[in-house]
């Protein structure tokens, strides 16, 4: 069960997406919906649970893990938080991450990376 999705924009802060939403699947309708989303306050860590474990993902990380083995060692009272970059170039940065991993030896698109995470959990 996905708890919440937070999208950090470049210049306008953070907005929250509820997991039960049905996002439009075409780009034109998606752009129309984006202007209606609720912007929440920064910093983003105030919205995360207190028992959260924040994991950043990057191709450039030196820690290459098997994602299924990585999440299987977690206890059930831990709330995992994944930080995935959705830009064309660059890498995610943040001082709130507990871990920084790479789940493939190839560079991945954000969609494929998220698919691997969701399938492993």
């Amino acid at each position: 069960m996905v708890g919440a999705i937070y999208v950090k924009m470049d210049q306008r802060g953070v907005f929250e997406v509820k997991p039960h939403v049905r996002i439009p699947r075409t780009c034109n309708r998606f752009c129309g919906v984006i202007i209606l989303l609720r912007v929440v306050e920064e910093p983003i860590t105030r919205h995360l649970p207190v028992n959260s474990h924040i994991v950043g993902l990057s191709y450039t990380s030196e820690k290459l893990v098997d994602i299924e083995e990585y999440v299987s060692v977690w206890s059930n009272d831990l709330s995992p938080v994944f930080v995935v970059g959705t830009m064309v170039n660059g890498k995610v940065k943040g001082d709130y991450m507990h871990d920084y991993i790479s789940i493939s030896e190839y560079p991945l698109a954000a969609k494929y990376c998220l698919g691997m995470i969701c399938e492993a959990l």
Partner: protein
Amino acid sequence: MTRPYGVKGGRKRKHAEPKYDEEDQETQPKKAVVEVEHNKEEEQQQQTPEGDELSGIPITPSENNTNKPNVIFILEKASLEVAKVGKTYQLLNSDDHANFLRKNNKNPGDYRPDITHQSLLSILDSPLNKAGRLRSVYIRTEKGVLIEVKPFVRIPRTFKRFAGVMLELLQKLSISAVGKREKLLRTIKNPVTQYLPINSRKIGLSYSSEKLVDMDDYVSTVPSNMDLVFVVGAMAHGKIETDYTEDYVASVY
């Protein structure tokens, strides 16, 4: 009727000239390759008298030393259709051409080329393709056109450009790389089974299948010398029914 055909002929003649130039350019790298080979032979001849009595056997690395099967994807029932909207020909989709489709008594929800676009991006962005195990992707449209996509192609990542490329493909039957004669996307003849390997297992994927499998376990039962062909529907509604699929599975996820 004759004039458009004549115009097309003229275009072909215009294209013929740069083809000759490209052929002339292509012969030069062939000569370069031959020169490199000659250099290698000379080096070998020089080394044999100088080397030890026992000459080592050169180890040639095998190209595909993994024991995992190669994969082919077939996207069925893709809605890639060209029509004249206003004054120009366009690839029909439900967002931009809803009024046009309703005027022609067609359901706009059935025209979803963005599904084909996202499916292609998912396949070509996968680690399977980056590892070199993707052999080819075939797209069969609702109208029956069969398209071959090479695994090294870089599909445009925005839908608008993708629609432009697909429009050109459906009108000119192939898309070449810029400056080369290599075909990246090609319209090929039906049926698709003539392009599949002989020792391949053809698997259809459907939500309504009674056979629910774990995809990891299912793929591991396939012998490594067999190729896998996955048939996926690239439409919004309905199910694929093809006569060449041997199995229908649904994944547990």
